């Protein structure tokens, strides 16, 4: 028995001896690991191209690409942090940034950004969003691109009906009703009633109400009666100007309906650009979310994407070099052109492709317009995702089905958010 144990221990030791891979070789070459937080066949080739450019420019650094399925990325980071096996550099968005900072997994990047080529080259609204997400106000990711909620609409249907793309919510509901022909299986709009519904609904509510901050004196403004008015308007469209199945729509179903040609307008974001244009070509265009009766444009910003350097990395300098390369004007331009998002590097604004990508130009215009008010949702709250998903998505379905009033629905959620915000402030 004892001999067996000794053998097992020896085997374990031998195994652990071979495990220390990577690291600096004797020739000064280093290998760094890069985790793509939205890995998949759509983006992998873009990163692979950028990596080969980087390696050509920095022959002593090799980059190992790992694509993480986006649905599991937060869990994957958590496990890696607990096990001390984090990558050197990784894609991180503001939606789980606070969580990673809370575990002290990331290295602050303020000095590196200000001491290098990226100084004053990053879109201020994005830098601000990143700063607000960390409890200590430091920059733990270098922002690379942003997304924005928009409405995709069928230009051909609007033209045929003699309608202008809506600028206000009232025009919007009128258009949605007029473009509906249920007998022909054509609907004016599609509501996201399933997974992810509430986040989207919040952006609509604030776009309508013009309420300009998420908390006032520590209390959530979500229950504002103007917000409830909008929710009510949307719920009234359900089944009249939208397919009945919408109550369970997640974004995949929504996009399938839109690209399948049975819906005139869809609220999603720039990220669905490649899907909608692949299916509908030039018969589709984007407009910002309509404004409410006040005429003020308020935008709830989407999570900002960026790159983080991990504290555990033995090669933080090389890791930063790579992150900086990815955010440089040339790489940032290449990346955002391919995925159709808003580039963080302000030098990219003059790139030729932006003039052709009408939807990106439109979104950049909204973000850069001094009259636009950003209303960041408190994604830094640990309970934010459970409140907006598990707790309230089923409630929103009740609103759609007419079993719960819009005001009661928002009041409950506002109370939950206020409580979570108070807990957060107390702990700071």
């Amino acid at each position, binding site marked *: 028995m004892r001999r067996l144990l000794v053998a097992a221990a020896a085997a*374990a030791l031998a*195994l*652990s*001896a*071979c*495990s220390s891979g990577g690291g600096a070789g004797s020739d000064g070459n280093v290998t760094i*690991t890069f*985790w793509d937080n*939205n*890995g*998949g*066949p*759509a*983006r992998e080739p873009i990163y692979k191209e950028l990596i080969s450019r980087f390696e050509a420019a920095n022959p002593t650094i090799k980059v*190992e*690409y*790992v*694509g993480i*399925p*986006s*649905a*599991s990325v937060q*869990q*994957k980071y958590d*496990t*890696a942090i*607990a*096990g*001390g*096996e984090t*990558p050197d550099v990784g894609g991180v968005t503001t939606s789980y940034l606070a969580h990673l900072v809370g575990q002290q997994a990331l290295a602050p990047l303020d000095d590196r950004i200000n001491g290098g080529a990226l100084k004053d080259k990053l879109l201020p609204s994005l830098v601000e969003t990143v700063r607000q997400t960390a409890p200590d106000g430091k920059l733990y990711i270098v922002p690379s691109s942003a*997304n924005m909620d928009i409405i995709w609409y069928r230009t051909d249907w609007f033209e045929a009906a003699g309608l202008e793309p809506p600028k206000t919510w009232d025009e919007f509901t009128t258009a949605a009703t007029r473009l509906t022909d249920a007998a022909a299986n054509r609907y004016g709009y599609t509501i996201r009633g399933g997974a992810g519904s509430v986040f989207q609904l919040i952006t609509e509510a604030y776009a309508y109400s013009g309420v300009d901050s998420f908390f006032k004196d520590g209390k959530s403004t979500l229950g504002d009666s103007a917000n409830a008015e909008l929710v009510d308007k949307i719920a009234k469209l359900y089944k009249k100007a939208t397919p009945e199945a919408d109550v369970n729509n997640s974004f*995949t179903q929504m996009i*399938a309906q839109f690209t*399948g040609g049975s819906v005139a307008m869809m609220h999603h*974001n720039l*990220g*669905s650009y*490649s*899907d909608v244009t*692949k*299916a509908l070509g030039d018969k589709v265009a984007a407009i910002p979310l309509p404004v409410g009766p006040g005429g003020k444009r308020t935008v709830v910003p989407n999570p900002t994407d960026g790159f983080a350097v991990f504290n555990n990395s033995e090669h933080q300098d090389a890791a930063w070099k790579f992150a900086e390369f990815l955010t440089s004007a040339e790489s940032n331009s290449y990346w955002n052109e391919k*995925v159709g998002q808003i580039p963080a590097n302000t030098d990219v604004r003059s790139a030729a492709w932006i003039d052709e990508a009408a939807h990106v130009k439109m979104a950049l215009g909204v973000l850069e317009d001094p009259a636009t008010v950003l209303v960041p949702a408190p994604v830094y709250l640990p309970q934010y995702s459970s409140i907006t998903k598990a707790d309230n998505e089923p409630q929103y379905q009740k609103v759609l089905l007419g079993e719960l009033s819009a005001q009661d629905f928002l009041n409950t959620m506002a109370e939950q958010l206020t409580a979570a915000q108070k807990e957060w402030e107390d702990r700071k």
Partner: protein
Amino acid sequence: MTETLGKTDTLVREIAGTTHAPPPTGRRRRRAVAEEPGKPWMIRVPLVLYLLFTLVPFYWMLVFAVRPTGSTQLVPWPVSFEHFDTVWNDIGFGVFFYNSVVMGLGVLVFVTILSVMGGYALARFRFRGQRVFLLAMLCSQFIPGAMMLIPLFVIFKGLGLLNSITGLVIAEVAFQLPLSLILMSGFIRNISVELEEAAMVDGCSRPRAFFAVVLPQLKPALVAVGSFAFIGAWNNFLFALMFATRQDKFTLPVGLSYTLGEFNTDFGALAAGGVVAAVPVVLVFAVVQRFLVQGLSAGAVKG
């Protein structure tokens, strides 16, 4: 194999008489059902409905997989294999498939061997702490895999088992073993001790008696436990996702979730990947289902 089985059958009857009659074979069972009085449509109509209900999603998957991008036809013709080409060559399902097969077979072999050995010990020997051991085995089933993730991750990191199929096999075997062990000991308990004793009286050692008398009768149990082990490993997503940080160590479920982007999903590729992942499971069940029914019923009814 069948010859041994035949011989043991006679042995059973000779030695044990009627008290230990062998479990009825599949054919005999089917005939018994057909002889039951009643109207056949009462069984068939609900079954057909249920079958349709189950098969329609598979049909959709198949349709999406073999029709070209952008097509919306319900009966895809001509069939296109572009999505299979994409998933197998571009996304890397070739590698994922290989990893899954190696892992599945590894789990199958180890779970089967270990559960036969352990199950035999549990069924045939009395030892101190046996009940506690069994209870612990049962209780371990209450712990969800996600809870063990971080401890396992840390241990595997220390042992250098991250990013290796070996590590996945070890984790999966550890999780599947308790239930397999309990199942297997139930099977073995149903095989009469007298058979082994008779063999030993005739001069067999205990191991020899085991291989000559017990193992052949365990065939349905081996198939049941082994195929469940294989399919469990084949479908496991969590461990494969967490313990592999290199793409060349991904398995099929991880590869499938890899085709689901945050903003865009290539449904054709996803469906083709689903077909690639489902076909081996369907094949395994098609081959073993006969034994599976035998094995399950042998375990369910005390002989």
